[in-house]
């Protein structure tokens, strides 16, 4: 019994159950074809692979947002940061920016990541030093970011022609899509950072009670600065995957509204938006849940115009399942019925 409560008490338990539910539903409605995988040219293809590949951006963002939300903040500029990162990388590769490097892909990626870090650092500066409310502080970049991206691309959609760059989204290693490895690497790094150093503890303490944390000697503003910077870098990576996928930088549409999905993914993963306890794996599961819902809704042929509504309803149900109050209320109801 104790073992069971330990497993159900794990933050990622309910998200995983929900995900399994969605997957099983998919298997049933597709009559099994959902699970089918084909190997073509040593590459794995199939629905599940699609979900993971398409969800990779969301997963990356949800890692960064888990850290930000754990401090009690929020970051709604990640979509714009994606656009900036894509714009920087594509402009360098196509030779309109930093012409000196001659379109070197590695330089392009590096500069794009730096740009993402700078965006994150800017948010971190506004939140931790100027002490602007996080949602307002990051809204500045959310609005201005797309303009900055337009400036970088001079208002055009920049297309690139580089197989090395396409590899970021479309490449395969050991038969698995490359974005999967990026997510795995980011997950590993973030777990090392939060579990093998005291960063995780400081994050939770800051999110629970930043005042008391300051009194115990934690540099709360440094912690905050750091998480926004991490979020910026992860958004930049997501931006690279996005632009490599469409083989160009589309400043107006890259990562549009994705910040809301990312926050939702973290919420589905059970991390409170008020800060405190967090779980990065649970957020990743949350991101996969969102991606599979999208895939499912398309698969069962819901008309595109009401997809958002269906998604909203599903999200409400998931959030109810995550709420302790709801769970205890349901348990009590069940118990009463049993007694009666």
């Amino acid at each position: 019994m104790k073992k069971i409560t330990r497993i159900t008490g794990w933050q990622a338990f309910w998200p995983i159950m929900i995900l399994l539910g969605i997957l099983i539903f998919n298997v049933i409605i597709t009559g099994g074809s959902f699970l089918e995988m084909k190997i073509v040219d040593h590459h794995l293809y199939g629905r599940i692979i699609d979900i993971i590949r398409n969800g990779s951006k969301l997963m990356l963002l949800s890692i960064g947002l888990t850290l930000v939300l754990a401090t009690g903040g929020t970051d709604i500029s990640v979509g714009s940061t994606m656009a900036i990162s894509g714009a920087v990388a594509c402009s360098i590769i196509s030779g309109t920016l930093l012409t000196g490097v001659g379109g070197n892909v590695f330089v392009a990626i590096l500069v794009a990541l730096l740009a993402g870090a700078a965006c994150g650092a800017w948010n971190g500066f506004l939140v931790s030093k100027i002490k602007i409310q996080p949602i307002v502080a990051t809204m500045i970049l959310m609005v201005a970011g797309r303009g900055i991206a337009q400036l970088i691309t001079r208002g055009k959609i920049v297309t690139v022609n580089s197989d090395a760059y396409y590899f970021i989204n479309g490449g395969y290693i050991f038969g698995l899509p490359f974005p999967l490895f990026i997510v795995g690497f980011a997950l590993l790094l973030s777990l090392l950072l939060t579990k093998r150093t005291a960063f995780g503890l400081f994050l939770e303490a800051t999110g629970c009670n930043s005042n008391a944390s300051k009194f115990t000697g934690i540099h709360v503003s440094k912690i905050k600065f750091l998480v926004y910077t991490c979020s910026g870098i992860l958004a930049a990576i997501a931006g690279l995957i996005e632009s490599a996928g469409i083989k160009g930088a589309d400043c107006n549409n890259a990562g549009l509204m994705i910040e809301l999905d990312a926050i939702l993914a973290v919420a589905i993963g059970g991390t409170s938006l008020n800060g405190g306890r967090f779980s990065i794996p649970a957020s990743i599961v949350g991101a996969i849940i969102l991606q599979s819902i999208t895939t499912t809704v398309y698969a069962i042929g819901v008309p595109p115009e009401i997809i958002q509504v269906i998604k909203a309803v599903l999200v409400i149900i998931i959030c109810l399942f995550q709420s302790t109050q709801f769970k205890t209320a349901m348990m009590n109801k069940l118990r009463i019925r049993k007694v009666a």
Partner: protein
Amino acid sequence: MNTEPILIELLHITKKYSEAVVALNDVRFQLNRGEIHALLGENGAGKSTLIKVLTGVEKRNSGIISFEGKEINPRSPQEAQDIGISTVYQEVNLCPNLSVAENIYIGREPKKGGRIDWNAINNQAKKLMEKFDLDINVTKRLDSYSVAIQQMVAIARASDISAKVLILDEPTSSLSRLEVDKLFDTMRLLRSQGMGIIFVTHFLDQVYEVTDTITVLRNGEYVGTYATAQLSRVELVGKMIGKEYSQISDKLQPHVEAETEGKLFADLQEVTGLGTVRDMNMSICYGEVLGLSGLLGSGRSETARLIFGIDKIEKGDLEIKGERVSLKSTLDAIKAGIAFCPEDRKTDGIVGDLSVRENIILALQAKKGMLNRITRQEAEEIAEQYIKKLEIKTPTSEQLVKNLSGGNQQKVILARWLATNPELLILDEPTRGIDIGTKAEIQKIVTDLAKQGMAVIFISSEIDEMLRCCSRIAILRDYKKIAEIKGSAISEQTIMRYIAGGEIDEKDY
């Protein structure tokens, strides 16, 4: 017009937040026409709760409120204001981005032909301000004036709504001496017009300067109402902290005798904080418990905050072990061997949603740095060690701290600091709101630590406790150290005499 002298009468007011938390117990209060009435009491005495009950912010459990002889039941500050009871809070609650005139007439703008008559507003506002001897441009934004003027505007607005009762809730804490004088002139003017004023403050000097009557509350109970002119300061302090001056025997000597002077740990020289403590000289030695005594707002906690690096030292030197230091953050202070249990356990102390184990290792972890992680096993050992040592009552070290009782939370914070192995431990009201048993335990821990050689600064509003724990006591008043007593000179009488300050009535001895 009703000419009955009694404006407000509160009888048998009881307010319980829960069965255990009784904020007011059978309290009465009476305000007359043309009277400035001080409402006094230490923190938690029930002053603000009484104000809230009177103005309808909080619902009372029982009791009667009557206004000019008629029973009233205001359900909101708005209703209270309509009856004639206006409140001006410490924080001005007007609209800073509107003009002075707009602020005065907001919600009751004079209209002409369906449109707001701006000329009337501005002219009337100007006249009103002149009545208060304030020559300001009423069309300028409110926030372009000082807090004092803003407060005056709030008072003017309240008096103009023909308020008969004005409640001033600690209006002077952010005002300069000159501004306070101005405020007092205004209060006297209103008094002469027959208004009744309730004045909540913790500055005794001001009580004696401006009030006619004093009502004292203590621990939610009514202590008494006195004519200001007939109550000496020492008596007043006695009423507030619950000791009759004449009853105090000198038997309560400190049991921690001042031992031979220990080695100096920290030395404050002419330390001044921004808007707080002024020219503080103080030394703290190993092996002693130094008490900081004084009323709320005397600079006790502020001194502690300066030593712990929370607030910046504006002027003067802080020397630790003979070396001048400048503490830029709490972490610097922790690294210098200082630990601090803050006054407000809930907001500044515990991290409620984390476990006992995590709360205990938090400061040690911060001291060690982020990369030098304390492993789970080490953390559990540290936690178990202190749970045992301080007898913290918790089922396991994984229990969330918010589920512990107040006393055990305080012990967790104490454990957190002891884990960092500090040389100076600062305790700000460590036993507030804690049951008697745990209180005694904490006091014993403190004196034991000093015996083992730790330097301790102990801050408490309870003089008994100070007598029991401290070997030396510095007394603060109005952000200044006014005396230091030690050893056999420590007695309740001396402390109270210094806390009260001002001229001391000889016959009281």
